[in-house]
């Protein structure tokens, strides 16, 4: 269960519309609570294909193949998954991919589980070291413009981009006995 921030509009729905507008076709994901609404929306969509992965780096390679075949994609993952991608992210530079990933954050803002903190603290730095531009959305009312800017620079300018969706936005995971 997540204690969600009070939102009037549904930001996952806004993300879905942006992905539709940019003609995204392949949506690899690793199941994740923060992305659950968006994943459901993608799986119910006729124009996008949700592709469940066993590990996040599969998604980087998948998007390279998708691009070679003429389709755009977006990788949905959690901050812990970014660490799994490091070597495969070399493909993003090597192929000059229009790479976009949306990363839900753990290990910050009210985290309960110390095991999430090391990777969560290093997510942005890891992505930047891999040559990925990092944008962040922390409030529901800024998700739309941040994701739109990220998609535009990734797909139009071939500038690999990660959008971090803050734990403050998603809500810290609540652990109860």
């Amino acid at each position, binding site marked *: 269960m997540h204690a969600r921030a009070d939102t009037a509009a549904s930001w996952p729905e806004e993300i879905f519309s942006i992905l539709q507008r940019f003609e995204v*076709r*392949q949506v690899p994901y690793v199941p994740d609570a923060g992305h659950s609404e968006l994943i459901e929306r993608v799986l119910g969509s006729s124009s996008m*294909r949700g*592709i*469940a*992965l*066993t*590990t996040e*780096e*599969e*998604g*980087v*390679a*998948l*998007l*390279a*193949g*998708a*691009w*070679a*075949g*003429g*389709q755009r*994609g977006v990788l949905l993952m959690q901050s812990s998954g970014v660490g799994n991608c490091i*070597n*495969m992210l*070399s*493909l993003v530079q*090597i*192929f*000059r991919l*229009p790479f976009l990933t949306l990363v839900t954050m753990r290990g910050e803002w009210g985290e309960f589980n110390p095991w999430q903190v090391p990777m969560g603290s290093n997510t942005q730095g890891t992505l930047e070291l891999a040559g990925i531009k990092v944008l962040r959305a922390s409030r529901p009312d800024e998700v739309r413009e941040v994701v739109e800017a990220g998609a535009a620079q990734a797909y*139009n300018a*071939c500038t690999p981009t990660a959008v971090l969706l803050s734990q403050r936005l998603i809500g810290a995971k609540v652990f109860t006995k």
Partner: protein
Amino acid sequence: MSKANLLDRRAVVSELLRDRKGAFAIGGLGASTYDIAAAGDHDRNFYLWGGMGGAVMIGLGLALAQPTLPVVVITGDGEMLMGMGSLATVALQQPKNLSIIVLDNEAYGETGGQASHTGGAADLVGVAKACGIADSRAISTMAEVEAFASSLQDVTAGPRFASAKIDGANLERVLSSRDGTYIVNRIRGSIGHTPI
């Protein structure tokens, strides 16, 4: 080291690509990329010089994007072992036009021939089958290679997986382009996509 009754890797790959028609061919990091280059450069060759473990997933992304064209991933046992979960991902998507063949010499040829898990207990055909790729077969003759080569043209019956035990001899490297952007843009160009 050469052993009798094992297939020659270059003969296998050249047979797979001999009458490829519109097929895309994706090599794994290392010798399988040299084998694809040795069979002849082609606009739809996707050579990998890195990203170990990613060959099958690149094939899946391409196969889903171009469902009417055959896509064949030709990789080695070491590369396949690193991306074994991708077989489960492929099985979930059931891309009808994707074929995967592992050239299995039971060794890491690129790094000095250290033994791989397939020389011990690991059975990649069993793994692929258990992941849900129903058409998973072991290949040990050139006749079976020929049959696999013609089946990969059938884009309504995949995904399919094969593992061919090959001779472990180190062959001369045939070097392809290492410029990834060129390789990918050339593939995109071959299906009518202009550069951005």
